[in-house]
C-alpha cells in the first residue's frame, strides 16, 4: 500500500522529475512540496528560527533572576506587557512557560523528528521518499497553526500562566490566573496542533522504515539513527494520543465547564465554589504519561545520530551495535513506566512512589550502557577533531552529567527535597540542551553537505561550539548548587527569602553566561545561511562515510538515488582489514577476492 502511495505521489510531481537539483526544487516549491528533503529543510529552518525565539524568552527569565525588577535593556520598552521595561510577575510566568513550550514543542521535538527524521529516513534506508508524502507535508504545515496558537497566547492577556506542565486547577479555571485571559486556551490548542503534526510524522516514519528499506537492508543493518527514529516514532504513536486527549479535555474544562480535572468546592479568587467531581492528579498522570516518554523522544534521535557521527569521525565501527539497539529499546520500554517520578511529592499512593523509583533508577542502566559504548567507539579510533566530533564529545560528556544528576531525583526521599528546585532545572537542561542540542549542532554540520552540497565553515563552527559549551556550563552547572541550596523554580524573586539572598551574584554570573550562549547562536545561524552561498563545495561522500545517504548526489534530487541502492553490509564497516580504504560503503558490492 505504501509503495502505491509513493508511486502516486511521484506521478503527481512529475513536473519536478526533470529537476534533479534540490536547490532548484526548493526554489520551485518554496512553500508547498511533498519531497521529504524539502520538508526536512523547512522543518530545520522553522525550528532554528524558533530556537532564537525560545532563547530570547529564556534571556528574559535570566534578566529577572539577575537584576530583579530592574528595567530590561533594549527590549523592555518594546514589549507592552512589561511595566515600562520591568518584568511583572505575570509576565515572568509567561516567559518561562513560553520558553519551555517553544523549546520543547517547536524546537527539540520537530528538529529531531521533523527536520532530521524527514531528511534522513528515506535517504538512509534507500527509499525515494516517505511512504505517505502528502501526510508528511501536512505534518509540517500543522506546525503553523500550532505556532499561530502559541503566538496568539502571547498576545491575549498576559500569556499562559501555568507553566508548560499546565497543572489544573491553575490552568483549568480562568479566574485562577485572571490576567492571562484566553491565552491558556490558545496554548492548549497549540499543543493539540503539534500533537497532530507529530502523530502524522510518526505514522509515516514507522511505515516507511518497515516497508521501504532497500534490498539487503535488514533490520540489524540499519544505522542507529534509523533505529532511534523508529523507536521514537513508536514512542510517539503510543504516548502522544494521551496528551492530545488530555489537552482537549482541559480545553473543555476551560470553555465548556466540564470538570474532568476540577474537584468540587474550590474557592478560587473569591469566585463561587466549583462544582463537579474531577481530579487534578488525573491531569498529572495523563500529562506525564506522554511527557516522560517525550523526554526520550527528545533524546533518542540525538543518541542515534551521535552514534553514527562518532563511528564515522573515529573511522571505527560502533562499539556494541546490538547492545546499542537493545538499550534504546529498553529506554523506550521503561520510558512508559516511569512517569510517576514527576509526581513523588504529589500525594499519590506512596507504594506507587516506590515502584516508580525502581523503574526510574533502572532506566539509568541502558543509558549507562550507551555511554560506555560511545566511549568504546572512540577508544582506539582515529578521530579528526572537527566540529562534528567536538559536538559529539560534548554530547557524551554532558549526557554523563545529566544522567548522573537524574539519579538524585529518581531516589524518592532525596527528591522530596530537590523536587521543584533548580536542581531539576539543571538536570533537564543538561539532558535536553547539553546532550540533545550539542548532538543536533553536530548533526547540522555533518549532514549539511548532503542538504545543500556545501560544507559549513569549520572555523565559525568551532567558535560557535566553544562559546556555546562555555556559556552552557556557566549557565547551568551552578543551577545544581542553587537546587541543593533549596532555591525553588519559577520564582520571580527568590531574594525575598533570606536564605537565598546571597545567590544574587551567582545568578548574575549565570545570566552573563546565558547571554554569551544566546548570542553565540547567531554564529550558527549566520554560518548556516552563508554557507548555503559561500560554503566549500562538497561531493557525494564528503566524510568518507558508509551510510546509504552518501551514495546520492549532494544535494540529492527528487527521488533521491540515481542508482537504485542494494545493501551488502551494515553501516559501520570502518577500518575493515578486508578493504583497502578505511571505509566500506553499504552499497559497495563485496570484494570478489573474499
Amino acid at each position, binding site marked *: 500500500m505504501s509503495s502505491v502511495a509513493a508511486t502516486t505521489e511521484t506521478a503527481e510531481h512529475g513536473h519536478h522529475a526533470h529537476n534533479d537539483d534540490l536547490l532548484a526544487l526548493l526554489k520551485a516549491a518554496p512553500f508547498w512540496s511533498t519531497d521529504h528533503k524539502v520538508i526536512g529543510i523547512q522543518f530545520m529552518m522553522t525550528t532554528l528560527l524558533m530556537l532564537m525565539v525560545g532563547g530570547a524568552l529564556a534571556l528574559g527569565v535570566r534578566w529577572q533572576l539577575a537584576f530583579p525588577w530592574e528595567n530590561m535593556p533594549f527590549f523592555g520598552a518594546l514589549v507592552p506587557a512589561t511595566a515600562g521595561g520591568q518584568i511583572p*510577575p505575570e509576565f515572568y510566568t509567561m516567559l518561562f512557560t513560553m520558553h519551555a513550550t517553544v523549546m520543547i514543542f517547536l524546537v527539540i521535538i520537530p528538529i529531531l523528528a521533523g527536520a532530521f527524521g524527514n531528511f534522513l529516513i528515506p535517504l538512509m534506508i534507500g527509499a525515494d521518499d516517505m511512504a505517505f508524502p502528502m501526510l508528511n507535508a501536512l505534518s509540517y504545515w500543522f506546525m503553523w497553526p500550532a505556532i499561530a496558537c502559541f503566538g496568539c497566547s502571547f498576545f491575549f492577556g498576559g500569556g499562559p*500562566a501555568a507553566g508548560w506542565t499546565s497543572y*489544573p486547577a*491553575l490552568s483549568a479555571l480562568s479566574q*485562577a*490566573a485572571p*490576567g492571562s485571559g484566553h491565552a491558556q486556551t490558545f496554548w492548549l490548542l497549540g499543543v493539540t496542533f503539534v500533537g497532530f503534526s507529530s502523530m502524522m510524522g510518526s505514522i509515516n516514519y514507522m511505515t516507511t522504515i518497515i516497508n521501504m528499506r532497500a534490498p539487503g537492508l535488514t533490520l540489524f543493518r540499519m544505522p542507529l539513527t534509523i533505529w532511534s527514529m523508529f523507536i521514537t516514532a513508536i514512542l510517539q504513536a503510543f504516548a502522544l494520543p494521551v496528551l492530545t486527549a488530555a489537552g482537549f479535555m482541559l480545553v473543555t474544562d476551560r470553555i465548556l465547564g466540564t470538570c474532568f480535572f476540577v*474537584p468540587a*468546592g*474550590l*474557592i*478560587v479568587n473569591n469566585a463561587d465554589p466549583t462544582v463537579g467531581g474531577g481530579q*487534578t*492528579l488525573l491531569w498529572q498522570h495523563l500529562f506525564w504519561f506522554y511527557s516522560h516518554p517525550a523526554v526520550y523522544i527528545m533524546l533518542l534521535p540525538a543518541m542515534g545520530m551521535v552514534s553514527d557521527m562518532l563511528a564515522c569521525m*573515529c573511522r*571505527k565501527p560502533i*562499539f*556494541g551495535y546490538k*547492545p546499542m539497539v537493545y538499550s534504546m529499546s529498553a529506554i523506550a520500554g521503561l520510558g512508559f513506566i516511569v512517569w510517576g517520578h514527576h509526581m513523588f*511529592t504529589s500525594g499519590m499512593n506512596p507504594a506507587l*512512589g*516506590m515502584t516508580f*523509583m*525502581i523503574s526510574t533508577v533502572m532506566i539509568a542502566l541502558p543509558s549507562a550502557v550507551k555511554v560506555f559504548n560511545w*566511549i*568504546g567507539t*572512540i*577508544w*582506539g*579510533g582515529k*578521530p579528526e*577533531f572537527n566540529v562534528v566530533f567536538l559536538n559529539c564529545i560534548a554530547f557524551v*560528556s554532558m549526557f554523563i552529567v545529566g544522567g*548522573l*544528576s537524574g539519579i538524585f531525583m529518581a531516589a*524518592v*526521599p*532525596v527528591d*522530596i*527535597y530537590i*523536587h*521543584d528546585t533548580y536542581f531539576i532545572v539543571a538536570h533537564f537542561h543538561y539532558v535536553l540542551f547539553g546532550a540533545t542540542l550539542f548532538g543536533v549542532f553536530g548533526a547540522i554540520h555533518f549532514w549539511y553537505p548532503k542538504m545543500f552540497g556545501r560544507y559549513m565553515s569549520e572555523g565559525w563552527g568551532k567558535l560557535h561550539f*566553544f562559546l556555546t*559549551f562555555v556559556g552552557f556550563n556557566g549557565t547551568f*552547572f*551552578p543551577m545544581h*548548587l542553587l537546587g*541543593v541550596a*533549596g532555591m*525553588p*523554580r519559577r*520564582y*520571580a524573586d527568590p531574594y*525575598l*527569602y*533570606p*536564605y537565598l539572598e*546571597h545567590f544574587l551574584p551567582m545568578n548574575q554570573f549565570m545570566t552573563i553566561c546565558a547571554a554569551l550562549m544566546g548570542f553565540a547562536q547567531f554564529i550558527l545561524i549566520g554560518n548556516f545561511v552563508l554557507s548555503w552561498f559561500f560554503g566549500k563545495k562538497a561531493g557525494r561522500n564528503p566524510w568518507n562515510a558508509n551510510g546509504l545517504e552518501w551514495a546520492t548526489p549532494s544535494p540529492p534530487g527528487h527521488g533521491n538515488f540515481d542508482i537504485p541502492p542494494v545493501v551488502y553490509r551494515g553501516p559501520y564497516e*570502518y*577500518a575493515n582489514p578486508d578493504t583497502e580504504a578505511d571505509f566500506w560503503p553499504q552499497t559497495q558490492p563485496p570484494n570478489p577476492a573474499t
Partner: protein
Amino acid sequence: MKWFWCLFFAFWPIVAIVVCLLAPGNNWWFPGEAASPLGRRIDDLFYMILWITSITFVGTQLVLAYVLFKGASDTEPGTANEKAWFSHGSHKLEVIWSSVPAVILLFIAFYQLDVWAEYRVKDAFPRKRMEAVFERIHQDRQKNDSLALAEVTARQFEWRIRYPGFNADGTLKALMPDPQPTDLYAVNDLHLPASAPVMINLRTQDVQHSFFLPELRIKQDAVPGLVIPIWFEADQQRSYQLLCAELCGWGHYKMNARFVAESDEQFIEYLRQLEREQNEDRVDDAPDTDEEE
C-alpha cells in the same frame, strides 16, 4: 589544535569538581545542616548518591579524556597503524558494564525505601511518639481522632492555619476534619511543638501549592480536593522558613511564611493567645481592667 580540544574536554570536569568542593565553604550548599532527624537521613542518602555519582563522573570523564588523548596521539603523522582498531565490541565488556551498574542502581533504589516509608506510609509513622505529644499538651483525644495538630490550607497566596480550640476544663480539643466554632486561626505563621514528631493536615482552597520547609527537607504538594497528612520533627526551638514550591499563579514567589518550633508550654500559650485575640470584643466587662496591657 587537537591537543587544545583534548585539554578542553579534560579541563571542564576538573572545574566542576573544584566548584563543588568550594561550594559548602562559600555557602553555596544546603541551607544549614538538616534540622530534623528525617532531614538528616535524607541528607545522608543525598551524600551517598553524591559519592557514587561523583566516582562515576570522575571515572567516565577520565576514560573519555584518555581515549581523546589516545585518539589524538594515534592520528599523529607516522604512527604505526594506518587504520583504527577494527572492533565491533566485546560481549564480555557489555556483560560487565551492564551487570555492575545494575547491581549498584538496585542497591541505591532499595536503600531509599525505609526513609520513604517512614515519611509517607501511614503505618510507618512514629505514632507512639506523636501520641506522647498529645499527652504532654493535655489534648483531649479519642482513639479515632486525627493525629494532626493543625490544618494548613494554602490559597493564592498565603497559608491559613487552623488549630483546635480549648475545652472548658482547659484541655485542648482534638482537630476535627471540618471547622468548629472554637477553632483558632492564624495566617502565614505555623506554630508547633519542637523535638517531637508533629503532624499537620495539608489542603488547598484553590489551586495546587506545595508546602516546603527547606531547613527540614520537607516538601508536600497541596492538591485540590485532597487532605494530605504529613509529619515532621524540628530539632531546635526556632523559626524556620516556609514557602511554596509549586507554581500557583503570579504571586507564587511570595507565599512567604514561617514555621515556629517551640516548647510544649510556649505552643499552648500561643494557642491561648490566639484564643484571647479571637474572643476580644472590646466590651468593657469590668471598667478597672481595661487598661491592664
